[in-house]
């Protein structure tokens, strides 16, 4: 809980401190569980429901820690048009249980899709071989 108190203390004077706090908690602790929601609510004088509503709204916030590497694959319209859907079975096989594949809708690189992201690195013009290689190397 000390970690959460420290994170909250960093942001508490900002206007709208909740999202920056949640990002830091997710990044530093790997999850925002019920205990964390409750503590953050108390420190910000919000209700548990309010914090839970925000946490559960965003896919980037997770209730349980998941240490697996993450590959975000865009399956929005442009990438679909460029064939991403046909690659997904291969992606799933490559990922197995070791890698978490997350579907996202648009990474902002529609002209050069299909696209994926690992951490802060974007990968464009992917074909099945390139994408499975990315997943295997993640």
């Amino acid at each position, binding site marked *: 809980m000390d970690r959460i108190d420290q994170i909250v203390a960093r942001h508490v004077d900002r206007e709208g401190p909740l999202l920056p706090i949640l990002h830091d908690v997710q990044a530093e602790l790997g999850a925002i569980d019920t205990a964390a929601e409750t503590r953050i609510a108390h420190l910000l*004088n*919000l209700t548990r*429901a309010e914090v*839970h509503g925000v946490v*559960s709204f965003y896919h980037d916030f997770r209730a349980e820690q998941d240490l697996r590497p993450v590959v975000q694959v865009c399956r929005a319209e442009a990438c679909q048009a460029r064939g991403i859907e046909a690659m997904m079975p291969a992606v799933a096989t490559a990922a197995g249980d070791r890698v978490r594949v997350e579907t996202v809708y648009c990474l902002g690189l529609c002209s050069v899709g299909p696209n994926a992201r690992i951490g802060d690195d974007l990968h464009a013009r992917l074909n099945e071989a390139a994408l499975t290689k990315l997943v295997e190397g993640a």
Partner: protein
Amino acid sequence: MGYAKQPDFGTPAVRSDRTVTLSIDGREVTVPEGTSVMRAAAEIGGDIPKLCATDMVKSFGSCRLCLVEVEGMRGTPASCTTPATEGMVVKTQTPRLEKLRRSVMELYISDHPLDCLTCSANNDCELQDAAADVGLRDVRYGYDGAHHLGQAPDLSNPYFLFAPDKCIVCSRCVRACDEVQGTLALTVDGRGFASKISAGTAEDDFLSSECVSCGACVQACPTSALMEKSVKEHGKPERSVVTTCAYCGVGCTFRAEMRGEQLVRMVPWKEGKANRGHSCVKGRFAWGYANHKDRITSPMIRDSIDEPWREVSWAEAISYTAGRLKDIRAQHGARALGGITSSRCTNEETFLVQKLVRGGFGSNNVDTCARVCHSPTGYGLKTTFGTSAGTQDFDSVEHSDVILVIGANPTDAHPVFASRMKRRLREGAKLIVIDPRRIDLVRSPHIEAQYHLPLQPGTNVAVLTAMAHVIVTEGLVDTQFVAERCEVDAFEDWARFVADESHSPERLEPVTRVPAEELRAAARLFATGGNGAIYYGLGVTEHSQGSSTVMAIANLAMATGNIGRPGVGVNPLRGQNNVQGACDMGSFPHELSGYRHISDAETRALFESDWGVTLDAEPGLRINNMLDAAVDGTFRAIYIQGEDILQSDPDTKHVAAGLKAMDCVIVHDLFLNETANYAHVFLPGSTFLEKDGTFTNAERRIQPVRRVMDPANGYEDWQVTQLLANAMGLGWDYGHASEILAEIARLTPTFAGVTWERLCEEGSLQWPVNEANPDGAPVMHVDGFVRGKGHFVVTEYVPTDEKTGPRFPLLLTTGRILSQYNVGAQTRRTANTAWHPEDLLEMHPTDAENRGLNDGDWVRLASRKGETTLRIKVTDRVAPGVVYTTFHHPETQANVVTTDFSDWATNCPEYKVTAVQVSASNGPTDWQEDYAGLAERSRRISHEAEGEPAE
């Protein structure tokens, strides 16, 4: 007349001086600027289909059903979020709108169980209505797609259930919790198709969540997703009757929705001016006590309290009682008899009890439970302003800029008003809390007091005088107000007094334990922050200096010019539903109705000629004096209507000794309460659902109480009093409560314009209703004080005689909790015990550690007067050196430890300060064991008539 829902205009009413005129479907309508198109349409009888809109919360625009076409506007805007503008031309029904609405409805219905016939909302469902309104005939999507059906309901709350498969995620419940109740306990979990209503985190259900069970969400729900369990059990109501709640002094009005004589549910009445359509867990849900198995419906008598009770007919009970009373009067004189009126009963019932005592018994020995709560308010405000009541209506809080709460815990004791106050605080009003305990208002979601002054219990006068010191010495007095409205000489005396250095916050800090800088800042904020309103409760009055504190509050309000307009004032939060009324009705030994002294020959003559009796000119005995006199042998008989003095009055052993010494104790109540353990006659009472009459709330608002079912005991309470009066030869012949009200109005100038018919027509009236105020007075002292000029009173701080020492080092203060009410006679007999099954002693972690105590341990709580045992709750809500408990449970009997010190002016007991010690314990005290034995013996009822042995 069948059952009709309350009208719903879709969006809240807007207050504006400017109006706009628009055309809706060819009909012109003029509405205040800012009104939604939806509401404007409803004003002229229209009914635009809607699901996410209801007029208790702000518009949201999510259901996409209330679409309209507006000339010159693109698309099909939602009528709930579109404000009406001048000259707007609106169409609410076109082929395009029909098609759109049906498509939306199809989507909703494709993910909804089609079990209307067996659904508890059948024929009372807005989804059903909307489907009918849009002409839904087919669902093209079928019912086999992704859906939310088959989820388990959340049954954790004792009063309502949440059935997620009936939920359409309109979020009305979430918004009602946020906007109306201000608890923000609900949220929408997830998003998109996965969205669902959640009561907090993934681990919470409704009971474990921050929900306070006010029921606003249930009221807001358009389907049966959130539904009263009582409706599920009994079915849809067939009729409704508007009546007034019988719990606290807020005086919420409800529609009692009935099926036959079965109450199906209580729904706050939107027109109610005290509650504005809101309620709390007690008023809405905690009415099950009315049919509880403990309720006694047959009269009972016995010659001695050692005997079991004997059930008898009403005729026998009344003649037995009258006989005993007459014998005692013949032998010991009229002054050996007395009565106690009830703040839970109606004005009419209270008036008759004091009439019986004064005119029938022949003494003025009548008192009421206001003695032990707000008698200092009566004294203090009468002295300073000239009238014994609060100065504002509840709406006033909507105009306050700085709210000072002292010795009150509104979120627990006056929850519906607290919600209105919290709404104003969320809008930006500032808050100062003066309380030894960190009450919820000090810090709870979205509410934070600018200043919390955690004073030492018993030092209210010192703190308020120190605030006055700051205001006077720093030149913050509203000199114009004082010069125009107040007695200047008295003001100058007072100003000299408070300005003395000995009253500075710095000098008083060792006494009050309030940091001087905080106190100075709070005083400056109150004096300069705009409209300043003071709200106070029993933490002010129940002290040896209760009356002084009330006058210190009045001084502060006058010095800062905070009297006589909306947003300001001095506001006592009255504890019981009709405590204001009981005081107004002449329940005190020295006063006839309307606060006129019994020694005043002219007033007495008025009553004597009307009643045809001779009245004693001497004030009678107060409750504690009656008990003293009983022990001395000069007071022999008492008629107690609807009050449990053994549990509620201080120093339980003293009360027990007094009652035990009397020859005839008559208890008129719903249950065999604790006082009845010492009674010889038990007259069964009727609940507020079984009688007609009026209650007067904390804002002086007189509201009708209506009979929705026959009294289970056979008589309304005033009828029982009348039976007794007539058995004593008084010859009363009231046929209905309205006739008693007419007599009250005839004899009481402040009630002159009040009639039953008028109350039924107008809903409520705030006294005074007289020639000067023909329609009543929401705010008092507008152009001048009732007494003429406002009177400043010098309030010297005198420490209480109840002092801590080595044997009793802690100070105990007492209070209430949300789910329980007063002595708990009603709420303990409802499912409210889910929240508060026992009284707990709150103690600071430091004090607990010093005593080797842990959270949940059994402890012995001892004072100079007595001792009891209960569990402790370790919390930093209380300061070190202070402990706190509630007095809802007879097993604990917190009043065994409270003292008989009392207010110097009114004898209001000093419940709020008792020196105590707390130590580990492993069982009940001797008193608890003895008393439990006595209670068990005393409650035996013999059924000889049926040939059964005594139980």
